[in-house]
């Protein structure tokens, strides 16, 4: 199991649809400050609902995650997973800003589904908000900076 491709559309600094093919093994991502490296990781956390909007550096919630480069008022990120036998599945999250705030829609293999179904599917592969498989900028420092109780809670969640 691995991420085969990301499809990022109008999310943060990705003002138009971008496909990023990924492979197994060790892939490095590099580029100048502010170019959009952390936004790629944020897009994965957003699509799989592994973090709140606020922890994706958006003060005003999900609305801030939609690109401000145009007036489209919508954003979408699709994560395509594949395994060694070539079987694939995808998880997509689409948000639209309307009169009553921002609406999130979730898709499993392009068919609408609920957030709970997404989480149940991901838990089969040990992917959850507490699985420590994604370390955002500054998370490493936080582990030694936080209190001993907070640190113990990390194990509580895993057990």
């Amino acid at each position: 199991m691995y991420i085969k491709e990301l499809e990022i559309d109008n999310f943060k600094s990705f003002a138009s649809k971008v496909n990023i093919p990924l492979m197994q093994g060790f892939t490095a991502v590099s580029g100048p400050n502010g170019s959009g490296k952390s936004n790629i990781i944020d897009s994965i956390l957003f699509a799989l609902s592994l973090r709140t909007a606020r922890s994706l550096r958006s003060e005003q919630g999900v609305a801030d995650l939609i690109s401000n480069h145009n007036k489209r008022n919508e954003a979408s990120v699709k994560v395509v997973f594949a395994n060694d036998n070539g079987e694939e599945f995808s998880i997509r999250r689409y948000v639209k800003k309307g009169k009553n705030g921002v609406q999130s829609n979730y898709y499993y293999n392009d068919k609408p589904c609920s957030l709970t179904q997404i989480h149940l599917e991901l838990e089969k592969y040990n992917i959850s908000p507490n699985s420590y498989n994604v370390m955002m900028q500054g998370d490493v420092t936080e582990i030694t900076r936080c209190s001993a109780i907070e640190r113990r809670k990390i194990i509580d969640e895993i057990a």
Partner: protein
Amino acid sequence: KKETFLEAYHAINNNFKEVFEQISQGSGSLSLENEEDPFSGGLTFVANIRDKRNQKLAGMSGGEKSLTALAFVFAIQKYLPAPFYAFDEVDMHLDGPNVEKLAQIITNQSKTAQFIVVSLRKPMLDNADRMIGVTQKDKGVTKISGIKIKDE
């Protein structure tokens, strides 16, 4: 509840001892403030980098704290393996040789799981199988500038 916690704790602690030695040439372990009743206390690190003695976590340097925290992350991963890992500049505090050491550990782990690692440090980029370049067009729009495969 206490049983499942202690089972996870002991397994992660064994992993931590192993990884910490590998990443820092020192010796270290996890420690519960109250082993009898774990939920009434916290979890801390008892760790000495290299041949240092009696190091306190608070007094460690920025790089040493990073190595300790990274050993904990890898210890959790061993206990609960995920299919992919995404790391954002986890090598920021490390000096050249420690970045190289971390890159080797990631290279080993990447044989059984996918690693996507954002980094600005040369030793990390040099060890990767491939590199995705990210840049910004006018007004700050992100553009993927290319994917460089390392020649074998």
